[in-house]
């Protein structure tokens, strides 16, 4: 770091023919945690707009915590780059200034442990060959902001979804809702019945996700319904685990299901079993169990990576009915080809509600449908508007539409 600390260079002090740097300001970057300073200066006066910039002209940006000396080079880039329009913020949160440079300086990269209100000093140098010119030194304090205005579009969509969510929940209490059939979930009864008739176990694999993964949570809900049916049919279920926390939660879920089915005596502690927290060790172990025990049915519900095919293919070879569900879209093709039924992404989330048939839970499926409707309508109209904008050259309009649907 000390190597990059520059004292005031005699080069910069030398008389230069370069035009002066004007309008140089430093301020707090809005909507951040207070670790970024925003520098801006005029581009026009220096004649360094993209078209006018002469090759070899560079800007060097320096930062210091002292008013004099201790300068650290924070950035170096060709004149004509880092313009105000390049700041990635939406139109409602950032006003693009014509021909103005704008540069974000991550102060965390140079200073650690500073607090809100700490003053930092900045200067820039414009260099071309041996000629150089320096700006005046400006100072700024950064503050930790309280709202990400750039995420306003996201927040509005969330608020709409929450309103619809509560509307659907209260609506569910008044009358029933039509839910389309999901073949993979209807086949669960068939799979459990088959296992009961054959006297063979059912394998329920919750994947390699942690309890913070939505697909694992959804898997635990499905496990509750599946194990309830298993208890009713007096069949056997085995749940090999990758994550000890998931195992602990699933133990409670299965125990509760056996109690609800009126068969607490049939519950055994070894239904849920920790296998390994290593991906391929887990796959090898579960493959071994499936090969040896030849289960009548295998359920793969949750978060899966490369082990998806290792598990599903062994299950298919063993002759088990296989039902899979995951929200990892690049593993879906493997499940499609190796399993009898596959729940695609959102169907996995809906499965717990679908199986439980509780009106309150079913109502949430309507919110999912509403969300998809919003997306479809938005995509349709945005497509038309963007095409029209592109056709007639309404650049700002097109950018505005794209900003509305972007995640910041």
């Amino acid at each position, binding site marked *: 770091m000390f190597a990059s600390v520059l004292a005031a260079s005699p080069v910069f002090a030398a008389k230069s023919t370069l035009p002066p740097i004007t309008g140089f300001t430093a301020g707090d970057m809005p909507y951040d*945690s*207070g670790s970024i300073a925003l520098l801006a200066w005029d581009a026009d006066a220096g004649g360094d707009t993209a078209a006018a910039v002469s090759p070899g002209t560079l800007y060097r940006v320096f930062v210091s915590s002292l008013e004099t000396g201790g300068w650290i080079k924070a950035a170096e880039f060709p004149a004509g780059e880092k313009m105000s329009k390049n700041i990635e913020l939406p139109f409602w949160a950032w006003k693009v200034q014509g021909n103005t440079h704008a540069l974000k300086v991550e102060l965390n990269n140079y200073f650690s442990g500073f607090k*809100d209100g700490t003053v930092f000093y900045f200067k820039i140098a414009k260099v071309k060959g041996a000629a150089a010119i320096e700006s005046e030194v400006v100072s700024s304090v950064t503050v*930790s*902001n*309280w*709202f*990400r205005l750039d*995420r306003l579009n996201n927040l509005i969509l969330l608020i709409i*979804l929450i309103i619809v*969510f509560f509307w659907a*929940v209260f609506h569910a209490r008044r009358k029933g809702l039509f839910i389309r059939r999901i073949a993979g979930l209807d086949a669960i009864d068939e799979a459990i019945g088959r296992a009961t008739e054959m006297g063979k176990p059912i394998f329920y694999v919750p994947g390699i996700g942690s309890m*913070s993964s*939505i697909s694992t*949570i*959804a898997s*635990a*809900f499905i496990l*509750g319904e599946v194990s309830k049916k298993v208890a009713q049919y007096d069949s056997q279920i085995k749940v090999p*685990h990758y*994550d*000890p926390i998931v*195992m*602990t939660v699933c133990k*409670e879920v299965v125990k*509760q299901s056996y109690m*609800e089915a009126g068969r607490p005596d049939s519950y055994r502690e*070894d239904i849920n*079993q*920790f296998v*390994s*927290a290593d991906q*391929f060790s887990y*796959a*090898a172990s579960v493959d071994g169990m499936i090969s*040896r025990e030849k289960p009548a049915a295998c359920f793969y519900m949750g978060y899966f990576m*490369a082990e998806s*095919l*290792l598990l599903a*293919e062994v299950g298919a070879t063993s002759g088990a009915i296989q039902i899979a569900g995951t*929200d990892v*879209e690049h593993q879906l093709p*493997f499940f499609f*080809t*190796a399993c009898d039924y596959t729940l*695609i*992404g*959102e169907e996995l*989330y*809906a499965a*717990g*509600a679908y199986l*439980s048939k509780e009106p*309150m*839970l079913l109502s*949430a*499926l309507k919110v*999912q449908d509403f*969300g*998809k409707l919003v997306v479809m309508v938005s995509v349709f109209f945005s497509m038309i508007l963007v095409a029209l904008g592109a056709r007639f050259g309404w650049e700002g309009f097109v950018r505005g539409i794209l900003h509305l649907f972007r995640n910041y």
Partner: protein
Amino acid sequence: MKLIKKQIPLAIVFITGVFTLVSYYVPNKTSIDYIETMNKWQNIVVAFAFLLGLVSLFFSHYHKIARKADGWGYSIFVFVGFLTIVISAYVSGGRQMTDAGLTPLGWSFKYIYNALSGTMFAVLAFYIVSTAYRSFRIKSLQAFVLFVAAFILILGKVPLGQIIWDLALGWTGAGVDQVIEWIMQVPAVAGKRGIMIGISIGAIVTSLKIIFGIEKQYMGKD
């Protein structure tokens, strides 16, 4: 009792969920510190839960050996493998490499663990072939579409396939690489994005169900 078993856990879920949700829109340091603290707590819980997993693993395999259940011999390897690694780690002082070279722990990882993991990963190649064979059995219109798309992709990836394409369909002026690019960039991406949009909305709704206590199956019903 209901307060302890139901209401307090639901309140914890609600408060934690709302704080975490709000922190996405609040960039303040307080919000960042909150998320960091939660992550630390999560790591501590995971560390303790790992012990639970270990106990579960040992008990289930111990019972298998004690009952002489089918395949009980494999269970012996769990204890042998565990002891081997623990003893080698103890002897090596927890280090895999020293100036003298690989320690027993490092040797175990490099020549046993890595080799076994690599073998499992390599098995995937064989399974992909058998899966491809299964997916090429045309049973429905969808399977036929899948077959055609996959066949064109395979054709375009091998030189012989490209020659066949040029001989049979060269007159159309469309190269196989262009067709492949179109398949990958248009219908494949459209389908993938459709699935991802559904997943994202489903994830939001599932989270709302948990935060607002609509979904509480994980706590039981009573």
